[in-house]
């Protein structure tokens, strides 16, 4: 049970949040209504996605104060809990790509290490900036017209239509194309949360003394370059691309990894 503690907790939050959103439309619940673009918590507190908000602002439209305040609240929240905690604890696409990753391992598609020359992990930052430029040029928020994240979320709340194809495409891309292709290389939303993550408070801490160098953590980590300190030094995982998913903590048999508050003073 201890081996999948955080995995279960994450699935519980992911599914729970989707149920709350679904119930807001289907049964009129007043807990969490709207979609990730902009939501209403308990019918009063506005929430808004920072990257979506930036896209609309890039078009030159003067957004309502609710959205701006919501974006500030969300930015602050993820500053505390870890930027890409959104990716692994909230985003529904995470369940799709985690399933794809599991299937990849089962199908033994990861045997040969492949170097994707044109698809580096920093592609997402280029796409993130590009999304803002395209929004400014075309005049509508560019990522929102094809975002599999909100397409899947709206699909669950309001019905999928042919939008399910986008979700399926991501799944196929991640299984048969690039490992961690969507979340780890392309997603501009994840990139924007990475930026928040660079300064986040709650991070994974590595204890070099306890580590036996089994490297289980690096196998399960979807962004394993962030674990460069394993068996080297006792520091926090400070890379913004760490999603705080806690898989490494789950699989570690030596208690060498744990969540803790980051020490800002230590270099």
């Amino acid at each position, binding site marked *: 049970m201890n081996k999948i503690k955080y995995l279960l907790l994450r699935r519980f939050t992911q599914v729970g949040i989707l149920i709350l959103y679904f119930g*807001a*439309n289907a*049964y*009129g619940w007043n807990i969490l*209504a*709207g*979609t990730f*673009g*902009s*939501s*209403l918590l308990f019918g009063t507190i*506005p929430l*808004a996605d920072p990257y*979506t*908000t930036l896209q*609309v602002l890039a*078009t*030159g*439209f*003067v*957004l*309502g104060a*609710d*959205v701006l305040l*919501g974006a500030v609240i969300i930015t602050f929240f993820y500053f505390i809990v870890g930027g890409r905690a959104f990716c692994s604890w909230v985003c529904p696409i995470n369940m799709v790509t985690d399933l794809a990753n599991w299937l990849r391992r089962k199908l033994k598609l990861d045997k040969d290490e492949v170097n994707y020359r*044109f698809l580096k992990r920093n592609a997402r930052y*280029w*796409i993130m900036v*590009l*999304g803002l*430029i*395209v929004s400014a*040029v*075309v*005049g*509508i*928020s*560019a990522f*929102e*017209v*094809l975002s599999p994240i*909100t*397409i899947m979320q*709206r*699909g669950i*709340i*309001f*019905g*999928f*239509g*042919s*939008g*399910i*194809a*986008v979700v399926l495409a991501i799944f196929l891309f991640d299984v048969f194309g690039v490992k961690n292709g969507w979340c780890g290389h392309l997603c501009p939303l994840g990139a924007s949360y990475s930026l928040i993550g660079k300064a986040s408070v709650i991070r994974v801490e590595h204890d070099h003394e306890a580590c036996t160098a089994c490297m289980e953590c690096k196998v399960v980590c979807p962004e394993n370059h962030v674990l460069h300190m394993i068996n080297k030094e006792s520091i926090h995982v400070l890379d913004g691309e760490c999603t705080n998913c806690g898989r490494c903590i789950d699989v570690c048999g030596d208690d060498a990894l744990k969540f803790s508050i980051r020490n800002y003073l230590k270099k």
Partner: protein
Amino acid sequence: MATTLQSVGLTALGGLLWSGYTDEVKASPLVLRPPGAIKEDDFLTACIKCGLCAEACQNRETNLDKETGLAKEGTLKMAKGGDHKLIGTPYFIPTEVPCYMCEEIPCVPVCPSGALDQLSVSNDKGELDINKASMGLAVVHKESCIAYWGIQCDACYRACPLLGEAITIEMQRNERTGKHTFMLPIVHDDVCTGCGLCEIACVTEKPAIFVLPNEVSKGVAGDHYVKGWDKKDQDRVKNAKEIKTTTERSNKSSADYLNSGDLY
């Protein structure tokens, strides 16, 4: 160096494809938006696709089925893949579920982004007034409207929430029979809100009265036409200055036009 150049180049390629796709998907002129929606172009920019309007519409108290007590399908739908409307934006189809023009307009105040403008559906006192909404304009296709055939039908007139204001019945003598009256539905665009209740009430196989978005259904005469008999319109040219334009006149044409041969 080479990789940076490649990244820049590929980003430019991606940008072109992305812009092209985005520009195409926003072109859906035949779409009806919720009450208070700002101009379609701006609406597409402003809407943050949160769905709060559609949820408010779905869960309003008046949306309960009188017999079963369960919620019916709401008016506002959220565009999904395959709807051929900008994905994630709210719209409605009158023949499926028209807008029932709730007095409290639950869909508008919940909009966080400003895509639905509360002021545009408020009266001078600042109270919500759904009659100020302009979601579209009902248009009558005379050839399929049976009232224009001479058959008595006033379904649209009676279905209209602004009875006798948005649609009036104009009496006209039926010359064919010589003893009957045409009772013709006439839509008044300054009153019609585009709710679509007439469209769903219409008795013809495919409705002869239907709501079209304002951008599609309305013409524009142009600023240079001034209604001299309308004081407000005439005021537009109050401060206009006289501009003298002189066009050079051909001395020959008036004398020679009979000889030119292009009379017909």
